[in-house]
């Protein structure tokens, strides 16, 4: 049972266009059975904050490639650096057989990307920042 959490969700780099142009959102996540992790937060954002074009922000379970996530001003990839370093690099031949358009299930490597990061459990007063790198240059 998770208590209600108050987190600050911020969008930058053009991602705010999908949220009515508002960059900072102070949100209160309601109490629920499972603890709040990033995966649940994304579902909540999609349902409650996202105003248009969900495919430009969320892809499958995770954010769209090209969108950076910072949790308390630190890269969310720090949360799974150790696990990624241990995984083996795939062979080029495996790459060729990959249907990149659908979900990348065919690879012998771990399933969808960012599994370690998505499992991070949110704390009260955390700040999560989504920066889109896809726009501008």
């Amino acid at each position, binding site marked *: 049972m998770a208590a209600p959490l108050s987190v600050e969700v911020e969008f930058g780099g053009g991602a705010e266009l999908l949220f009515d142009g508002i960059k900072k959102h102070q949100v209160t996540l309601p109490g629920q059975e499972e603890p709040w992790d990033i995966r649940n937060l994304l579902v909540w954002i999609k349902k409650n904050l996202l105003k248009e074009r969900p495919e430009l922000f969320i892809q499958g379970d995770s954010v769209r490639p090209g969108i950076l996530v910072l949790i308390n001003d630190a890269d969310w990839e720090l949360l799974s650096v150790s696990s990624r370093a241990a995984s083996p690099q795939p062979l080029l031949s495996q790459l060729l057989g990959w249907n990149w358009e659908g979900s990348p299930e065919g690879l012998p490597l771990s399933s969808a990307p960012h599994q370690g990061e998505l499992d*991070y459990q949110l704390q009260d007063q955390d700040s999560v*920042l989504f920066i889109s790198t896809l726009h*501008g240059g």
Partner: protein
Amino acid sequence: MCQVGEDYGEPAPGEPSPAPRPSREQKCVKCKEAQPVVVIRAGDAFCRDCFKAFYVHKFRAMLGKNRLIFPGEKVLLAWSGGPSSSSMVWQVLEGLSQDSAKRLRFVPGVIFVDEGAAFGKSLEERSKTLAEVKPILQATGLPWHVVALEEVFSLPPSVLRCSAQEPAGSEGAYKAAVDSFLQQQHVLGAGGGPGPTQGKEQPPQPRLDPQSLARPPAAAQTEALSQLFCSVRTLTAKEELLQTLRTHLILHMARAHGYSKVMTGDSCTRLAIKLMTNLALGRGAFLAWDTGFSDERHGDVVVVRPMRDHTLKEVAFYNRLFSVPSVFTPAVDTKAPEKASIHRLMEAFLLRLQTQFPSTVSTVYRTSEKLVKAPRDGPAASDSSPCCLLCMCALDVDAADSATAFGAQTSSHLSQMQSPTPLTETRTPPGPCCSPGVGRVQGCGQGACRREDPQACIEEQLCYSCRVNMKDLPSLDLLPPYILAEAQLRTQRAWVLQEIRDCLIEDSDDEAGQS
């Protein structure tokens, strides 16, 4: 760099206890002391200070390694407001303010191109963007220019001519230039002082470019530009056309104000995407110019890409951690779906691949580093070898060869055009037919424009990828006048050359025979 005596218990904001984040106890891979904040490449965690040093070092190393920018040279920074170019401007500013040994020695200016008219933005929206842009430009303290894209309609045709190329400086020339510059500084006693010679020269210079003083562009030009962009059928062609026009405009401004180099903020990720996109667009022959560090196709003005070693992730983190000001300007592909254009598709492909295989972008980048430009035969050859009208790369199409699919395409197009002959002969070509230099007005005019399709005249002078792009424009008459004028001039010149070829003395043969 990281301080040795730093307090290790520096708490990150909002972090109650280390237990929920086991891997943050990992230390920065460089200094092995501070808490890491960002992961670069696969698994290298850097702390804030080490990341900054790494980032700045990459920028300086890219400039220093290539040794193209001589001391005291005027360099124009092309700033679009986006994160990469903002970061580049910031790096240049920081580089200029360092102590004399490491200070950047060139003289920069900044240019911002207002492209709102191409996307159908209203005047209010554009002036709102400009209101955000101008304070940032003024805060840089560099001479700045704001131009609207509509000004392409008043460009002269000379923009499209490759000026004579200056011979590339050898190693010795660069070193000699740096040494003499340092000696000058030393003699003037300004080394390390607060006001170096170039700084003293700047205050009398007007900070504001007179053109940029809030004068809105002519409504007719705005209308013409939005008409042009609305008529383009595909997003791919729109993006390519926008890029071409923007390049010409920046080139013109650089020439007008005496800048010999232009720096653009293309990052590693963007260049990797550009490389793959250009392969799909048919620009494979020009990859080295499009994605390399320096692009000398325009001759006197060289385009330089100092950010090409920085990935978008590093740029975004740096901008966030060190509060680099940037302005969000909507582009032609904002909120476009994934398959809207070749550029979008390639971007989605590469970025998706990157999440699975984090070395994708750097591999493509390293491949682009290995591309070597086909050497031009020397300054004399640049006049004789034809260049594409729009992108100014070598013309790679052999129009006479009807065996190629391309040749078949253009010849069928021409045969369609030539069948209604009575109609074409009565059509008079738009604008003055001949340049004043040519004596035979009547004959030349009729001869050159005989095949009259101005469309075919223009298409002949384009490289393959530009031709494919122009196919998405239903009418080439909407193009800015400087392009049409230059196309006509070149057609005429080619025709005249053809006519008097028999009368020309082949200089090289004669000299070889006599000597």
